[in-house]
């Protein structure tokens, strides 16, 4: 079985700190994968390694069977892995449209012809509900709009894998529902989504599979409800509990 993305024994040390230890992950095309874990579990570090912002200390990352762990971030982006940032990082003084144009012009192997670019960028913006903000500087957008801009910029690179780093945190209930719909639509385009999220209800509803990290170690993976009942996961989130108490928690 050929996987779309495969992490093989990925380990990352920052000096003496082991941020990720021997992580093995397989992702198939079309999945929505959730990555959860307490703060400092190494979730964002894993994204940084997949996207090429950091090299792994040991281990390899394969994308469509091709090793990408040694490649620079710009090339990985062009190959088809795009990301958003946990703390939004749009190009602030550029307009929303220009933000998209950068992903569109540089993040693809075959960028569209110059005349088509603006049209296509507008289509992406409209899809993300930012059509009326095309000429506004990115710094004037609200936080929610900036999160959509991050997603739009990543989508502009026409990725096969989209890495979403906590796009739903800080959103209100209605906005969360809308964002979930957007993610489903993105998946319907054939994009594989890997998302880091703290909002467990979203993970339960949206993800096909969940991977749980704790202190840099993968402690569980599987269907959302299986994982939620896994004693090691509960322990990681709530602390060491007696088996009896744990059952009351699950009830």
């Amino acid at each position, binding site marked *: 079985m050929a996987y779309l993305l495969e992490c093989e024994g990925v380990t990352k040390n920052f000096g003496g700190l082991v941020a990720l230890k021997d992580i093995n992950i397989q992702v198939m095309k079309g999945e929505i994968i959730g990555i959860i874990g307490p703060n400092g579990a190494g979730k964002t570090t894993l994204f940084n390694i997949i996207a090429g912002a950091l090299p792994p200390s040991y281990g390899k990352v394969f994308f469509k069977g091709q090793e990408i762990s040694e490649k620079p971030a*710009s090339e990985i*982006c062009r190959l088809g892995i795009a*990301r958003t940032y946990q703390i939004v990082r749009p*190009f*602030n*003084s550029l307009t929303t449209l*220009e933000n998209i144009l950068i*992903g569109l012009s540089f993040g693809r192997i075959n960028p569209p012809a110059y005349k088509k670019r603006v049209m296509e960028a507008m289509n992406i913006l409209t899809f993300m509900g930012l059509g009326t903000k095309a000429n506004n500087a990115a710094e004037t957008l609200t936080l929610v709009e900036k999160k959509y801009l991050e997603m739009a*910029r990543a989508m502009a*690179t026409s990725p096969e894998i989209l890495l979403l780093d906590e796009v739903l945190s800080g959103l209100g209930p209605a906005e969360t529902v809308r964002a979930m719909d957007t993610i489903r639509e993105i998946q319907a385009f054939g994009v594989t989504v890997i998302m880091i999220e703290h909002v467990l209800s979203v993970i339960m509803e949206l993800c096909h599979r969940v991977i749980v990290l704790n202190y840099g170690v993968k402690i569980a993976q599987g269907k959302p409800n299986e994982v939620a009942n896994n004693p090691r996961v509960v322990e990681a989130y709530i602390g060491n509990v007696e088996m009896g108490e744990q059952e009351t928690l699950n009830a």
Partner: protein
Amino acid sequence: MMSWIQRKNLFLIAILCLCVLAALPLPASSYVLMWVFLMAVYLTLALSYDIVGGFLGYMNLGHSTSFGLGAYSTAILLNHDFGLALALFLAIVFTAAFAAIVSYPFFRLRGAYFALATFGLISLMEVFATNLQHVTGGSGGISTPPGDHMVPAYYLSLVAASGTVILSHLLGRSRFGLALLSIREDEEVARSFGVPTFSCKSLSLVISSVPAGLAGGIYVWNVTYISPPAAFGLEIALSPVVMAMLGGTGITLGPLVGAVFITLIQELLWIKVAYFHVTIYGVLLVLLGLFMPGGILRTRWLWPVVQRLGFGEKIDYFKKQEILQR
């Protein structure tokens, strides 16, 4: 009042300005010509500085390295009986090659470290120019074959300046220009979205060195003398930076306004309050920096005019309007 300042009139306005300047040698004295000539040289420097300083967002305090190298190599070549065209051409090639080489170590630095390193480079160049006696004539400088080149040099400087305006304008709306802006905003994100940051940075330094080298060549041809402080001194190093920042960085119009404004102010002060002019000049700069931090063009009453002209916008203004109306 200023409603004639429209994008559709932009070309006409530019042509009009050029015509006035082109006709200037007929009535004007050589004093005025020299003044406009120097303004054009500074304008070329300020605009080309802004490619790296404004678009890319790397403060290149050593931009005058290119000016000095262009001036010195033109002077040396002229003294070896090369024609002007060939001398200028070779000087530009040399300057650009030098920029390509120094871009490699310098663009490993960022922010203040880059600014300081480039500032160190001009001191180094001055030391070289002073000590390589048999090549550069040492601290005495080099004289080139004498002759009155005022009028042709004046036209050449106009060509260089307007060429740089066009270059900067085209850059601002190109894909490459967009890459430079994205690096200015957030280099790491730009890289992770596929922008080849290092080659973009190197290329922008090379592109910005070409007009500066040309300006140096034209300058030395007209003035027929160049010395280490004139080529690599503080004034020639910092004036373009101040002009670009005063007018407004990152907009083609910015360094243009800044250069004209500063040369005008300097000259007026020198005529009206000689010997006190430096003090007033300094106070003026401090006041402008305090009250117009984004530059003259970004003030509340000028910015709308700038936008109406289509500057401060990186993509074709009309195309964008058209799409939005759909």
